């Protein structure tokens, strides 16, 4: 008899499956659910962007590109970062085009971290960082962000988390699931602690285009920070291009050329047709981004005010397309709250515990849905919380 336990990597087997797997299993088997769980835009990729990919196929451009991605695309990425966020990178050797922001995170972590290293991760956060660290054998040190700090990390918390073994700080802002952002001043206070160390900042800026009111500031823009920062970003959220799987890292040459090796042997290169689409997005997509941002903003205010009106306390999100209401006052655990909302009202939102242990008492609502859909969901949530109060 074959013993798969002996065949498989222990490290991989020990990666915990998502704690809310059960919740998603129930959700997938129910019909007519008003769901607010999807973490991707509801817009279709703008037509001119799709068209440029189609044209590349028609012209038979179906080859591999260079490992780092097409020169034109890398140039457009650096132009864009300069134009939008005042960042300067060399397209020649400081950009690697990746298969989504996910690969960008993966190659950055695998290039920097070794077994035994510590990586500081603010939670709640997107779910991929921790398993990648585990596969490397690095130790994750959490900073639990708090509602009273608007889910930002404070300089005190950062200082307390750093040890001689700290190799990396992950900075996932604008944040999924909380919608928190970090301002220039807040980043400056963190930068002050990091300057003069060898700690690498992995700044996950996938939601950089989706901030409301203030433009996103990258920590790499601050004095002395570019040299210790890796930016991971991509096209999925800004241009509604999730299925194209296209992202990039930007980093100082010394780091980027090592990341390129990991990318080269794992992936070869990002999909060529997606790269053509991305060039068009960067060249002519500013108006599309603006339109989508304005629409998300309308929905953000709608869901925020709507939840407050029915008596649910909400931190006002300033970025991404999620809202992270405080459901603790209803006296149920996050999972109980979400399961009962699903069973009793057929409305689905994600328990906060999916994004970190300190997520209990919260839930994530995605507002990447039409106002009509959101309004329907709000009615259901209102009926549910009313029934709890009785």
């Amino acid at each position, binding site marked *: 008899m074959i013993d798969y336990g002996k065949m498989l990597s222990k490290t991989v087997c020990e990666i915990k499956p*998502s704690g*809310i797997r059960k919740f*998603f299993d129930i*959700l*997938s088997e129910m019909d007519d659910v008003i*769901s607010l*769980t*999807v*973490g*991707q835009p*509801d817009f279709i990729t703008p037509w001119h962007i799709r068209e440029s990919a189609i044209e590349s196929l028609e012209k038979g451009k179906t080859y591999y590109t260079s490992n780092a991605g097409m020169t034109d695309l890398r140039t457009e990425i650096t132009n864009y970062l300069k134009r939008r966020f005042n960042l300067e990178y060399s397209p020649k050797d400081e950009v690697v085009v990746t298969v989504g922001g996910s690969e960008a995170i993966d190659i950055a972590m695998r290039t920097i971290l070794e077994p035994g290293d510590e990586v500081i991760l603010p939670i709640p956060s*997107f*779910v991929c960082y921790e398993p990648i660290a585990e596969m490397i054998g690095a130790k994750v040190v959490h900073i639990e962000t708090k509602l009273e700090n608007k889910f930002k990390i404070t300089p005190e918390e950062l200082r307390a988390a750093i040890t001689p073994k700290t190799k990396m700080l992950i900075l996932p802002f604008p944040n*999924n699931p909380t919608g928190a952002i970090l301002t220039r001043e807040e980043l400056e206070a963190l930068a002050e602690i990091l300057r003069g160390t060898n700690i690498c900042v992995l700044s996950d800026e996938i939601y950089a285009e989706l901030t409301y009111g203030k433009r996103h500031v990258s920590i790499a823009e601050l004095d002395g920070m570019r040299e210790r920062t890796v930016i991971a970003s991509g096209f999925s959220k800004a241009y509604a291009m*999730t299925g194209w799987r296209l992202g990039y890292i930007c980093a100082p040459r010394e780091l980027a050329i090592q990341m390129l090796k990991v990318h080269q042997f794992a992936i070869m290169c990002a999909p060529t047709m997606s790269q053509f689409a991305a060039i068009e997005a960067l060249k002519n997509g500013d108006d599309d981004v603006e339109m989508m941002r304005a629409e998300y903003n*309308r*929905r953000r*205010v*709608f869901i925020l*005010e*709507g939840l407050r*009106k029915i008596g649910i306390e909400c931190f006002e999100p300033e970025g991404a397309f999620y809202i992270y209401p405080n459901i603790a006052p209803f006296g149920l655990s996050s999972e109980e709250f979400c399961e009962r909302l699903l069973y009793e009202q057929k409305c689905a939102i*994600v328990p906060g515990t*999916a994004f970190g242990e300190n997520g209990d008492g919260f839930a994530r609502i995605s507002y990447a849905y039409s*106002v*009509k859909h959101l*309004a329907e969901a709000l009615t259901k949530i209102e009926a549910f919380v009313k029934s709890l109060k009785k």
Partner: protein
Amino acid sequence: MEKILKLLEDDATLTCEQIALMLQKEVGEIKDAIKKYEKDGVILGYKTLIDWDKTDREYVSAIIEVKVLPQRDRGFDKIAEKIYNYPEVQSLYLMSSGGFDLALIIEGKTMREVAYFVAQKLAPIESVTATATHFVLRKYKDKGVIYGSCEVDERGNLLI
């Protein structure tokens, strides 16, 4: 308050309460603003986009180019008025084309009905010198909405 117009242009079914939430205003303010827009003729009406091809109702539409002789003092307005008063006429535009002057969109149950309108009502109007009727074979998109599609959320529900 012009934001109200943009919102209603995209979705006339939005309630004052919903608009108030989105614009962070009082419901009363929104109601008053809409009333004023209606009174001032900025908002002229609310309609629904219907794909009649998906129903049993017979339906045809046509775009008709009309060449006319403008009248002294009144220009094209008088003749335009005469044409747009027919209920069959859905839209009427004065055009800058050299080939014709007015373009109208007409809807009817059958091609015969449309042809009857052109022959019996439009062409006999004094100062209409020529017409050219183009029947619509298929409506792909109208008012920014693509016809024939339906809303299905096919997004993968991954934990992102």
